[in-house]
């Protein structure tokens, strides 16, 4: 079974600083990879996804992520953080060959706080 680890539970950055959120997965092959963002009390919004091809993917709100097969990682980055980026971020994977439908497996999340 696949698993996802987000090593950082909380991260605080200053507004305007760069950001990198870490995500590592465990799966026998290359899964499909996603990043979602969740504001307090809200549902999840899809930021970006990776299925195949170019390992650097662009998403909404100025976010990007890079898939590194050798490190089983899919880290999320943003060059300059805005106060409105404060939220919880979840990395998720789908095993495309699984018999569990399109089940997403999520990491535990990283809470991002932005200092003015």
């Amino acid at each position, binding site marked *: 079974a696949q698993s*996802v680890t987000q090593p950082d539970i909380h991260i605080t950055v200053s507004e305007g600083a760069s950001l990198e959120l870490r995500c590592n997965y465990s799966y026998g092959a290359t899964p*499909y990879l996603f990043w*979602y963002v969740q504001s307090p*009390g*809200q*549902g*999840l*919004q*899809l930021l970006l*996804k990776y*299925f195949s091809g170019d390992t650097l993917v662009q998403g909404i709100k100025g976010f990007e992520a890079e898939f590194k097969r050798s490190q089983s990682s899919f880290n999320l980055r943003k060059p300059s953080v805005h106060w409105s980026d404060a939220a919880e971020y*979840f990395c*998720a994977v*789908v095993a*495309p060959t*699984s*018999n*569990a*439908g*399109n*089940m*997403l*497996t*999520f*990491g*535990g*999340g990283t809470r991002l706080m932005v200092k003015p």
Partner: protein
Amino acid sequence: DAGVTQSPTHLIKTRGQHVTLRCSPISGHKSVSWYQQVLGQGPQFIFQYYEKEERGRGNFPDRFSARQFPNYSSELNVNALLLGDSALYLCASSGRGNPYEQYFGPGTRLTVT
């Protein structure tokens, strides 16, 4: 297009009661999945339905059941509620392009007392 909608937004139930949560997918989406998100954790997969058939089931007890209707909306039912069932229940839909690309609703916050 309207996004995924869920009802109710919040509800409070007592232990042992039954609850039904509802979800309407994005127009044109034929697959609906349900997730449970306990406070402070990532969502956990409960069920996936596609064309009214169950396509996936997570590690949840038989007290949890779901169904999908001909209009692709879905219900999640939980019987004999326990305190540990208190959570945000999220519905996601997918389809039309890539079945693995899921879009989430705002969730239903269930509190069991």
